[in-house]
């Protein structure tokens, strides 16, 4: 159940995520080599506008991207359609956005708890 707009949104978000994913993986590899601690991660990311924007845009993109992707799967395999499908799409998008937003804030907002 895709029209041109949803399709473009899914492709564009995918293209945005591609470099971000590569970056994220690279960071992970680097981080993993020393063994991970919470402090290490947070020390690097907290208070950094760069990482906020980095992960922020990732979360934004992935919420839309995954919501559209799951929408297609829901329609094709469970036969969901109409308002139910629309509600599910938005629900997934908001859930991911909310949880992802919380995570980004946790990881990049200075000060923390």
């Amino acid at each position, binding site marked *: 159940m895709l029209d041109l707009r949803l399709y473009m949104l899914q492709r564009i978000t995918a293209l945005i995520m591609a470099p971000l994913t590569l970056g994220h*993986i690279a960071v992970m590899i680097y981080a993993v080599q020393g063994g991970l601690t919470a402090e290490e991660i947070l020390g690097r990311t907290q208070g950094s506008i760069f990482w906020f924007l980095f992960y922020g845009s990732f979360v934004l993109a992935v919420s839309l991207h995954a919501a559209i992707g799951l929408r297609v799967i829901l329609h094709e395999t469970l036969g969901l359609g109409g308002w139910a499908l629309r509600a599910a799409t938005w629900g997934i998008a908001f859930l991911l956005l909310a949880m992802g937003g919380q*995570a980004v804030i946790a990881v990049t907002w200075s000060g923390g708890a």
Partner: protein
Amino acid sequence: MRPARAHPLWLAFVLHRVSGLALALFLPLHFWVLSLALTQPERLNRFLSFTEQPIAKLAEFGLVFLLAVHMFGGLRLIALEWLPWSAPQKTLAAGAVSVAALISGAFFLQVV
């Protein structure tokens, strides 16, 4: 009734769908773990040391692998759709992408 599907493009589609679905299911979990940093950093730490376990490493590798597969699969798809390539070039691209996925997978396996 199912038509036979054991052809490469259909398998690529399934891999893409399964990896996408798996990532989408994992993502909330991942977000939840990270947001622990906000509320309970010590639990995050415990979690992170748990990731030292081989099983967890394997799972982690799986996730990274899924992400790589999905990403390369998606890029392959977008290339196939948007670049006016001829059929042999497409096959080539598909091949290159699977090689890339394999290499990156192996690489991650090394690191993790």
